[in-house]
């Protein structure tokens, strides 16, 4: 459990961090809260030559509101996200899902940006960010660019970030009056989700006007259950939700491990989607 040797640097501004990453090229790796990178280093599954620690860049931390948008700095810890009243009000789904991440020790160190940039499809937050239709903001040598969540997650542990880009903030459109629920299925409290379902529901006059479903650990990236979302539109009763949820695993390609086969994961996705939507819609 001893990592291979690497160079270490701790820039104090985003500009400095981006310059350092550009100099480091493909062999540089960003260290945020360290909850994913350090285990990879210790198991010698990652061999970066340079580790760029962005933990002391004040502009990367903090939460603010900006005209109907919640802006969360990439280095904001899970603990701070869970505790923040603005997150609870405008993006309750994110607060609820973040509260289920690992354990208190991890939540005090792990960060929203680190979790998203790591892009583990078994992580809880990528699917949530996808369901929230958030925008991820990156800074590179060429300046700033916004990446919609739908384009951010490219493959297993791969994002649209270029090697010299740093994720700086996440922008979430406020959805104060949407119902939400994160249904996480795990084997022990501290384990990753076998499957997770993030549901957001806007109700209008007793029916589901709009639904967004994010799936955790149902493929090499977080996914939206698009068929289910469509089928849910207009649903007024439990039976309709039940039928819609049957499509939740359509088009997914979940992995196999000792905890679950792909077939079982697909089954879980359907059951958990039904439960998550009913809870989010207050129909449960």
């Amino acid at each position, binding site marked *: *459990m*001893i990592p*291979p*040797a690497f160079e270490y640097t701790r820039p104090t501004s985003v500009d400095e961090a981006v310059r350092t990453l550009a100099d480091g090229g493909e062999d540089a790796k960003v260290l945020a809260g360290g909850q994913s990178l350090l*285990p990879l280093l*210790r*198991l010698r599954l990652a061999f970066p030559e340079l580790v760029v620690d962005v933990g002391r860049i004040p502009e990367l931390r903090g939460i603010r509101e900006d005209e109907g948008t919640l802006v969360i700095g990439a280095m904001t810890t899970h603990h701070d996200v869970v505790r923040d009243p603005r997150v609870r009000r405008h993006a309750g789904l994110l607060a609820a899902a973040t509260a289920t991440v690992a*354990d208190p020790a991890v939540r005090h160190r792990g960060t929203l940006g680190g979790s998203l940039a790591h892009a583990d499809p078994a992580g809880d937050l990528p699917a949530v960010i996808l369901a929230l239709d958030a925008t991820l903001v990156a800074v590179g040598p060429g300046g700033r660019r916004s990446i919609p969540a739908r384009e951010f997650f490219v493959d297993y542990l791969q994002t649209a970030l270029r090697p010299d880009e740093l994720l700086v903030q996440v922008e979430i459109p406020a959805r104060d009056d949407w119902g939400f629920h994160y249904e996480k*299925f795990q*084997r*022990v*409290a*501290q*384990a*990753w989700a*076998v499957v997770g379902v993030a549901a957001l529901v806007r109700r209008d006059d007793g029916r589901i006007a709009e639904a967004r479903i994010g799936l955790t650990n149902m493929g090499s990236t977080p996914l939206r259950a698009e068929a289910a979302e469509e089928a849910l539109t207009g649903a007024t009763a439990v039976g309709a939700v039940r039928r819609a949820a049957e499509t939740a695993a359509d088009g997914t390609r979940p992995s196999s*491990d*000792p*905890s*679950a*086969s792909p077939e*079982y994961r697909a*089954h*879980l996705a359907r*059951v*958990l989607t039904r439960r998550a939507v009913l809870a989010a819609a207050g129909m449960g």
Partner: protein
Amino acid sequence: MSDQVTEREVGRSRPRKEDAHLVTGQTTWTDNIDVHGLLHLAILRSPMAHARIRRIDVSPALEQPGVVAAFGGRDLAAGLGSLPCAWPVTEDMVLPDHPPIAVDEVRYAGDPVAVVVARDRYAAADALEAVEVDYEQLPPVLDLEAALAEDAPLVHSDKGTNRCYVWPLATGEEYPTVRHRADVVLRRRYVQQRLIPNAMEPRSVVVTPLAASGEYTVHSATQIPHILRIMLATVTGVPEHKLRVIAPDVGGGFGSKLQVYGEEALALAVARRLGRPVKWTESRSEGYLATHHGRGMIQDVEIAATREGRLLGLKVDLLADMGAYLMLVTPGIPILGAFMYPAIYKMDAYDFTCTGVFTTRTPTDAYRGAGRPEATYAIERIMDELAVELGLDPVELRRRNWIGHEEFPYTAIAGLTYDSGNYEAATDKALALFGYDELRAEQRKRNESGETVRLGIGVSTYTEMCGLAPSRVLRDLRYAAGGWEAASIRMLPTGKVEVVTGTSPHGQGHVTCWSQIASDVLGVPFDDVEVVHGDTKAAPQGMDTYGSRSLVVGGAAVHRAAEKVVEKARKVAAHLLEASEDDLEFTHGVFSVKGSPEARRSIQEIAFETFSSHDLPDGMEPTINAEHLVDPDNFSYPHGTHLCAVEVDTETGRTTIRSYVSVDDVGRVVNPMIVEGQVHGGIAQGIAQALYEEAVYDDEGNLVSGTMADYLVPSAADLPAFVTDRTETPATSNPLGAKGVGEAGTIASTPAVVNAIVDALRPLGVSEVAMPCTPQRVWDALRAARSDGHSSGGPTASAESAESAKEASA
């Protein structure tokens, strides 16, 4: 003494003396030890399950920064003997060579192949990658049944077989005769998955040579400093009197540190060769490969009974996974279970056979309960199946067969004499605490309304044999050592007391409990007692800590030694008080003359008088210190009833434990709080086997569950609040009346949980779920039952009518 109960230390929930230094970080874990010039050892391990080593070149590692030395297997093994197996269970057992480091062939993923020694542990870890090894892959041996086939690839080709031994036991009437008169015969196959022990402190060893005298001090995270000293002398050739072994603070073991490990021998060999102190500490993932595993058995069980539910006989055929090598007590683990399959039940015949099998996996050995959880699981599972077959409540079936409290001492079918017990009392108390009848009523209601989340109730009425062990019994079982334990008591001139014990605590609380025992017998304050342990120089005699033996053997030795001190002190007191010994009373540490209460001497005063020796009885040796060794007459037999209620979500397969009640009878209790802690931890570990933990290997023999992310150890967040209670039927085999408690919870809880899961699902056609009962496995079982159209038997289950049973046995 019964009129002083309230003033006694024994029976009080004393906060543990050990805890202040543990919780304030003032511990000496082996890995904290630093000595001048310390070198760090790292071990390169085989990445494959079975291979021939064609070539190994450590010289590139020598060129890495900070590296002092590097050795391949051949460089080191020549000066080292085979690692010991102290339990050759049969005369013709196959005992392969077990070099501390592989020489020609690796036999499990994790087998050591090379050693690098460097100035710091980072340099050592980096340099490992420079060692070059060419392997020629050999076929892995993973399936216990296939391994016994004629043409199976061999783990040890020089032995010509993968069969390590066959150990039979047949008691009572002939089993086939009994089977013939049975109305019902049930056969089941149960699989005990492999488990990884997961002591919180990893293994670690530091060897410090004193070059001038040829002495070596070995600090090791071990349960067995005394046994380790003897065995290291044998393996390395360093004379025993030149070896000092110290077990400093040790953070848990669960049997995994009841071992003589290759790394301990390698560290000593390297320190000897270089004349420098060396340290080796495992990483968690390294420990998963190289610290011995537990369980790993296939159990074919057959039970024969009358239609009225009276047990007639039990037949058990075991295949036990030894892993690649026989370690300290590997072959004996299933044999410790052999005597426990009949459990608390009366029957006419018992037939047991265990076949030990070599595989290309990490060696197995003792893990909390060691043989007895496996036995208890098999009997308690099949008792539930038999109850269903007979249409009886599972508790009622047990009542019809258990040994009545008035029948003790009772010699059970397997030959053990249970000294005491009261199964009725423990069960009745547990049923009341649990609300058994109410839960059954709720269960019926929920089943009738076809709820998605089902309720299940699991029963486990267990006993076990522990307090290892009478030396003559060990001889009969072909175990190489005895089972005694030593204690000595030093009365210091100022009236303080040192208790020297041969037990070696690694979390149990011996310091507290031994203080309570000594304090009561000697009549000195609890805080005036210090306990010395875990250092072969300071506590030279001992058989160490395992098998729930410490209190009932070691604690009994403390008790007896303290009584000897009092007897010696009585002679001095009689002399000083000019009275006859018979006229002296001894209470609360004070000798007084009957009828003249002003004539008194405290034991502390006598300690000082003895120290000065100015006025001792003629011819008396000037000491009241005493030593006592206890060789127990019998094992101890804790028992109890555990009840578990689970809710099983039939849509997802998830099991949630709703309530858990344990009523254990561990005899007289020295410290109720410590007992409760042992029971809580034990239950948690048994639940872990039922629901969460499994060492998973792929088809190539690689450990797939190689980190704590994949091998799921539950935490408090995953467990319910346990309701624990006790009955107290004193043991008659030791002066404390105590029975072992360290393993009881683990032994009892696994079948309680699985019985509850199967009970919840039985109306849906499920009669078996393999451990660990993961959500996927429960879901699979439900699906299989649905496609079977609610047949009552799973794929491995078969119930026979009396007719077909008789045909089969004819």
